[in-house]
């Protein structure tokens, strides 16, 4: 009887060895360029790259780093990169601009990432004090939309303030030099500025008014020509999602290393994000909200909210992780 057991064991060993050998069978890595950022929203891409998940899936990722998603998307449109990580706001404007793009998946969502940081010495201690103040904002980004939403939530409109266009990385400087009284921005700059201003700073935010998303996007052309690469990419990102879920400490360490930020800062903002690779109503609802906002504020010459579903490419996600595709379960259609 022992012998039978032994044989079985040997068989198992041999077969598992075989699997290993097959898995390691070399196949040339496919090279792709991803335009992404050092923002917390790009965590999954950093983790996938650092943990070798892209390589495991047969991809060699060439990073093309950007300050924020809007420029990352632009580099895709200008054929400098194959894919970009980008918030839904730049995607909206790209779609309104008739760019042929596909949203492949949301990779993170947050309703706590955006805020307005104001200087108290500019006489701001309540939200309605923002009236008539110079507020730094990066146009056509989430910060732009959030500013609008926060104003509305406090009974104001854009006309009540003076918007000043500032690049995200220049916000800190602009506040320091008192070029602006407040800034509508996101992490990491947001938390960094908060620490910098210390007692002089005050934060305005409202979790109920805006849910921001960060997404993987690409040109339609690239997607239809390389459906396999998209699958490999999504698979690697899903692996990263699992890793982040199961090893948050290590993921934070990776982020601290690659973004050159302090671990404390990384940890402080960490819980504001849910790193879920998914396609659900959030992206559609938010895009529609923002489209109405853009139309109303004449930020586009379009007059109709487009059908954003046409700009969503779900095949890859559906095949890699069927349960992550939730656009077929619509609560209010039930």
């Amino acid at each position, binding site marked *: 009887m022992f012998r039978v057991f032994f044989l079985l064991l040997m068989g198992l060993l041999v077969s598992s060895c075989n699997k290993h050998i097959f898995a390691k069978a070399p196949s040339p890595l496919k090279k792709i360029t991803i335009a992404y950022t050092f923002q917390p929203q790009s965590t999954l891409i950093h983790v996938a790259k650092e943990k070798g998940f892209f390589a495991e899936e047969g991809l060699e990722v060439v990073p093309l780093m950007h300050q924020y998603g809007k420029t990352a998307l632009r580099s895709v449109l200008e054929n400098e990169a194959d894919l970009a990580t980008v918030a839904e706001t730049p995607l909206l404007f790209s779609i309104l601009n008739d760019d042929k793009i596909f949203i492949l998946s949301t990779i993170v969502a947050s*309703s706590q990432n955006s805020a307005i940081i104001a200087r108290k010495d500019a006489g701001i201690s309540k939200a309605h004090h923002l009236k008539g103040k110079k507020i730094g904002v990066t146009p056509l980004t989430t910060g732009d939309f959030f500013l609008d*939403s926060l104003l*509305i*939530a406090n*009974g*104001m*409109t854009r006309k009540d303030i003076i918007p000043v266009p500032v690049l995200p990385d220049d916000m800190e400087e602009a506040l320091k030099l008192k070029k602006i009284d407040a800034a509508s921005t996101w992490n990491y700059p947001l938390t960094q500025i908060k620490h910098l201003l210390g007692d002089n700073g005050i934060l305005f935010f409202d*979790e*109920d*008014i*805006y*849910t921001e998303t960060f997404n993987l996007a690409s040109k339609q052309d690239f997607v239809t020509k390389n459906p396999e690469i998209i699958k490999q990419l999504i698979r690697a990102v899903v692996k990263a999602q699992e890793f982040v879920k199961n090893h948050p400490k290590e993921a934070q360490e990776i982020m601290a290393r690659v973004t050159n930020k302090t671990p404390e800062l990384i940890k402080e903002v960490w819980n504001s994000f849910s790193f879920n690779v998914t396609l*659900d*109503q*959030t992206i559609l*609802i*938010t895009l*529609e*909200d923002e489209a*109405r906002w853009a139309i109303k504020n004449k930020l586009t010459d379009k007059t109709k909210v487009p059908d954003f579903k046409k700009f969503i490419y779900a095949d890859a996600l559906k095949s890699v992780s069927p*349960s992550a595709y*939730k656009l077929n*379960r*619509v*609560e*209010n259609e*039930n």
Partner: protein
Amino acid sequence: MRIKNQLHTISTLAIIVLIIFISFFILSASRYKTAKSVLNIADEVQIKFFVSTSLRDQYLLYREDRPKEQWVLVNQNLDNLLENLQALKGEDKNIKDIVEAKKKGSALFQRIIANTSLIKSSLPNKQVYSELDNRLISQMYIRHNEFFNGVQEIRSGTEKEVEKTYRNLITAITVLAVILSFIVIFSSWHLNRLISRRLEILHVGADIISQGKLEYRINIEGEDEFSDLATSFNSMTSKLQMNNEQLELERARSVQNAKLASLGEMSASIAHEINNPLSVIQLTNSRLLEKIKKEQLATDTIVHSLEKNQGAVDRINKIIKGLTNLSRDAVNEDIQVFSVENMMEQVLSLVGQKLNYANVELRVLIPPGDLFIESSLTQISQVLINLINNAHDAIANLPEKWIQVEFKLMPESALVQCSVTDSGNGIPPEIAEKIMQPFFTTKEVGKGTGLGLSISKEIIETLGGKFYIDHECPHTCFVFELPKIFNR
């Protein structure tokens, strides 16, 4: 290992297996139950949620109090259900997530309600509040979607869990059944093999011993019930062997005694036989004497009387001669060539009168020209006397009384066959086996010793012959076959 201990081990093993599987079973069963109730609650949550969304949408459409109030009630129900869910699986990340999403969604709805009063107010910037209303509704939808997706996820996860635990239950039962039947089959096979293997040795040993080899000892190695049995068996055999030797001794002694007894019996019959001619002589003499005293006797009469006496003397002579032959005991000394006719004459001199007296017809058939045998005359005579006596006793009360003694030369000529048949109806098979045994008799006490046949059989076998009952014969027929020439 003793069989008892083996059985003990096997049953312990079975009990351990049973305990392990029953605990696994209970665990799976409780998981199954939990999963089932989670599933039920999740279903209810879903239904309540649909009701709440429809009330929500009614409110959003008309901003009236009725759907709002109803929503509050349904929402309360929903919260209770979620509490139940948390009580069942509080640690579950998905449940925490949906509770969170639900809380945010409800808070947003409350905020929408609050904001509605601002929209309905006469504030100058109420336009802004209706814009906010839109944003809040979108956010609420997002939260409610999150909630709904979470519930779906819990449902499908739990469904899988239900399926898994159910499968576990089935697997547990199947594996348990397989293992238990394996244990049963293996142990019965093993025990069977063990028992039959060890039993075989006992069996063979018993066979050998039953063939009479009482000195044989069974050798079973190891220490179990079988070696115990073999030990008792062996001690039984040695006791048997001892008893047997004792018995053998006693039997030999009895046979000797019986020989003496039959000698006594024979002397009685000899005396009886001699007595007759003697009284003839006495009577003849006294008559002759009387007549001689009274009158002159004719020579004829004297001669006649003397002749009569001579006949009686001859007869006595004959008896004595037969007796001398019989008295010689040792077989070897006795071996001689003799005529069957002469032997029968001697035998008849000893039993003839008894037969006459009992009105038994005796027929003696000898092949023409007589038959000569080289063997022990005395011993064979004794066998014949025994057989004739037995026959006499057996037919004494029958209406038809005859005894036939027949000698035949067997075809190979090396054997002589003698059969003693009487007018009886044969020996009933149920006692045929027994009658050859020493001391078996059906005769009344003091009359028979029960040794006649056994001694006869022994004599014939010592003389290299066979002694048996011929059951083919319609009458009672004892047969013996002897080598014509006894080979020392």
